[in-house]
C-alpha cells in the first residue's frame, strides 16, 4: 500500500506542476506586471490562498452531492445577513461572517420548507430564495449607503469580491476557521464518504444521516461564507465547484481529489487575489473564476484517462486495432479460399469488402509487418499468416465454448472474443475444448 501507483504519481506530478507555476508567478508578476510585493499584497495573497484552499476542499462535497446550484443559492442568500450584521456591529469580519452564515442557513431552511409543503420543484424554490434574499441584501445595502459612515464601501466587496480589503487580522481569523473545518472533515471523513456515496446503506448501518448531513452542509456554508470576500456573492458558486471538478478529472480516489482540489483552489485564489489587489479597478471574483475555469478547462481536456483528448486518442487507437483485426481476417479468408495463405489480393477487392475500415486496417497491418504490398496487391507476410492462423484458431475455440461449454463442464465465464481463450479458462478446460474441436474437424 505504500508503493505509489502510476495514478498516485500522476497526482503528485500535477501538484508539483501547480506549485512550480505558482512559485514562478511571483517573479513573473514582479517583472512583467510590475507587481510590488508589499506587505499588503503578501497579506492579500496569503488570504486568497487559504480561502481558495478551504473552498476547494469543501466544495468537492458540494460537487459530489450534486448540490452545485444549492451553493449558488446559499451564496446569494448570505447577503442580507452581511447587511444586518453591519448595522449591528460595524465592519467586524467575524460578525459579518456570522451574519452571512445565519442568513444562508435561514435561506436553506426556507427552501426545504417550500419543497416539503408545496408542489414547487427544487430549482424554482432555490430561484425564489436566491432572488428574494439577494434583493433584501441590496435593499439593506442601499439603506446603509445613506449613512454618513463611509466604511460601508467595504460591504460591496461581498457582491463582487475584493481581496484588497483583506487585512492581517482577517487572515488569522480565516486560518483558524479553515483549520477547524479541515479538522472536522478529517474527523468525519469516512462518515462523509459513506453518506455521500450511499445514504441508504449508511442509514441501514446505524449512521445518523440527518446529523451527518447537517455537519457537512454547515461545512459547505462555512466554505461559502469564507469565500464570499474573495469571489463575491454572484460568482461564489464557480469558486466553490471549479477546483473540485478539475481535481476529479485527475484522480479516482476521493482523498486525492480533495487534496488536489485544495491545491487548485489555493492557486486560483492567490492568483486572482494578487492580480486584483494590484489593479484596483478589477474586482477579485472574476479573476479567480477565470483562473479556476482555465484549470478546469485544461483538466477536462487533457487529463489522462478521463480527459477528452485522451479519450479521443484512445478511441482512435482502438479503431485502428479493430480495423487491423477485421482486415487481417478478411485477407486471410480470401487468400485461403484461393488455396494458400500467401495469395496476393487486389487492393480494389479488399477495399471493396472493407471500405474505410479496410484502408485504416491495411495501414496498421503494414506498420506492424503483418502484410506487404506488391504492385497493386496485398500479401500476408509469414508473421501475418501466423497471427491470422492463431486468431482463427482462437475464434474456433470460442465457438466450441459457446455451443458445448456447458456439456463439457467448462466453468461459466463471460465471453470476450478479443482475448485468447487460453488466458481466460483453466488448462484442463482448454484441453477438453481442443479435443471437441478436433472431433468436429475430423
Amino acid at each position: 500500500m505504500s508503493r505509489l501507483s502510476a495514478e498516485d504519481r500522476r497526482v503528485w506530478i500535477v501538484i508539483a506542476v501547480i506549485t512550480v507555476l505558482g512559485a514562478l508567478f511571483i517573479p513573473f508578476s514582479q517583472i512583467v506586471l510590475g507587481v510590488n510585493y508589499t506587505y499588503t499584497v503578501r497579506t492579500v495573497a496569503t488570504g486568497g490562498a487559504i480561502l481558495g484552499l478551504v473552498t476547494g476542499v469543501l466544495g468537492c462535497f458540494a460537487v459530489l452531492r450534486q448540490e452545485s446550484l444549492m451553493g449558488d443559492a446559499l451564496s446569494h442568500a448570505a447577503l442580507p445577513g452581511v447587511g444586518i450584521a453591519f448595522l449591528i456591529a460595524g465592519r467586524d469580519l467575524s460578525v459579518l461572517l456570522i451574519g452571512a452564515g445565519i442568513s444562508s442557513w435561514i435561506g436553506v431552511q426556507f427552501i426545504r420548507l417550500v419543497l416539503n409543503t408545496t408542489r414547487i420543484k427544487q430549482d424554482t424554490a432555490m430561484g425564489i430564495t436566491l432572488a428574494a434574499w439577494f434583493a433584501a441584501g441590496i435593499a439593506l445595502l442601499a439603506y446603509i449607503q445613506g449613512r454618513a459612515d463611509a466604511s460601508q464601501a467595504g460591504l460591496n466587496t461581498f457582491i463582487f469580491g475584493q481581496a484588497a480589503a483583506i487585512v492581517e487580522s482577517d487572515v488569522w481569523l480565516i486560518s483558524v476557521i479553515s483549520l477547524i473545518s479541515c479538522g472536522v472533515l478529517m474527523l468525519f471523513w469516512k462518515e462523509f464518504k459513506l453518506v455521500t456515496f450511499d445514504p441508504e446503506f449508511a442509514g441501514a448501518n446505524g449512521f445518523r444521516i440527518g446529523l451527518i448531513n447537517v455537519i457537512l452542509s454547515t461545512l459547505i456554508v462555512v466554505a461559502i461564507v469564507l469565500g464570499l470576500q474573495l469571489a463575491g456573492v454572484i460568482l461564489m458558486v464557480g469558486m466553490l465547484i471549479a477546483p473540485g471538478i478539475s481535481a476529479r478529472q485527475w484522480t479516482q480516489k476521493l482523498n486525492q481529489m480533495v487534496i488536489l482540489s485544495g491545491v487548485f483552489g489555493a492557486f486560483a485564489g492567490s492568483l486572482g487575489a494578487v492580480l486584483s489587489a494590484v489593479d484596483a479597478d478589477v474586482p477579485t471574483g472574476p479573476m479567480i473564476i477565470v483562473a479556476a475555469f482555465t484549470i478546469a478547462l485544461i483538466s477536462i481536456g487533457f487529463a489522462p484517462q478521463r480527459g477528452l483528448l485522451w479519450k479521443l486518442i484512445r478511441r482512435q487507437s482502438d479503431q485502428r486495432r479493430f480495423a487491423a483485426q477485421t482486415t487481417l481476417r478478411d485477407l486471410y479468408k480470401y487468400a485461403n479460399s484461393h488455396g494458400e495463405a500467401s495469395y496476393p489480393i487486389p487492393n480494389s477487392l479488399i477495399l471493396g469488402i472493407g471500405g474505410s475500415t479496410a484502408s485504416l486496417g491495411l495501414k496498421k497491418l503494414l506498420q506492424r509487418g503483418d502484410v506487404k504490398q506488391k504492385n497493386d496487391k496485398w500479401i500476408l507476410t509469414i508473421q501475418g499468416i501466423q497471427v491470422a492462423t492463431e486468431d482463427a484458431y482462437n475464434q474456433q475455440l470460442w465457438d466450441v465454448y459457446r455451443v458445448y461449454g456447458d456439456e463439457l463442464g467448462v466453468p461459466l465465464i463471460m465471453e470476450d472474443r478479443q482475448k485468447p481463450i487460453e488466458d481466460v479458462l483453466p488448462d484442463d478446460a482448454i484441453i477438453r475444448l481442443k479435443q471437441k474441436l478436433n472431433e468436429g474437424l475430423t
Partner: protein
Amino acid sequence: MSKLNGAGKTSESKKPIALSIDDLTVAYNSKPAIWDIDLEIPEGVLMAIVGPNGAGKSTLIKAVLNLIPRAAGTALFYGKDYEQARSLVGYVPQRGSVDWDFPTSVIDVVTMGLYGKLGWFRRPGKKEHALALHALDQVGMVDFAERQISQLSGGQQQRTFLARALVQDAQIYFMDEPFAAVDAVTERAIVTILHELRERGKTVLVVHHDLQTVEDYFDWVTLLNVEIVAYGPTKDIFTPINLQKTYGGRVSYLNESRPVIVGGD
C-alpha cells in the same frame, strides 16, 4: 373474512424465528404502500419477495430496516428491535440507488460495509482490508479490488454490493433486486452465494422480479401486493391461484407450470 396466512408453520420445526413482522403499515400521501403486514420468517430460509410493480416490495424492506417511517406495526429480529439487532443484519440496496461515477475503488466500497462496526471516528485498518479482500474472494472479484467503480459492468457492480454485505458477516440478509439486469455469469455466481449462505444457517430475503426462477432458486416465497397474499415454502405457496390473486389476472402459463407476467405493468 380473513386473509390467507403463512403456511408451514414453524410449530413442527424447532428453528428460531429470525424475523417477525407485525401489523406493519406504511403510508404514502395517506395511501397505503404496504398494509397490515404479518410475517414470521424462521431462521435459515432463502425467501423471495415477489409482486407486481408498486406492490411495496422495496418499501417493505426499507420499513423493516427503519429507513422510512412506519404508520403502524413492528419488526423484530430474533426478538429484538432493529436498533439493538443492527449488527445481525446485512443490506444490499438496489444498484441504481448510487452514483457509480463516485471516485472510489471496489475494495473501498466493500470496506464501507465495516464502517458501522467501526463506529464514529475510527479508521479502517489492516484487519478491515483483509476482511474486505476475503469478501471479494467470495464473489470472485479479488482481481478487481483496486478497480474504479466507474469501470465496472452491471454484474460486477452487483457483486461489489453483495461483497459489501457479506463482509458484515450478518445473520439476516436483505437484498433488493440483486438479479436485475445482470449477465448470466453473475446470476449464477449470486445464486451460488445465496445457497452457501443458507447452508451456513443464514436467513436471506430477496426482492425478486423474475417469476420464472423463483422455484429454482428459493425455498420460501412471499407474495405481496400491498398486502400479503400468501407466504411460506415455495412448493406450497407458489400456486396458480395465489399468483392470480397477486398479479390480478396478468399471469399466464407458457409450459406446464412456468408462470410469466403478461400485459403492461
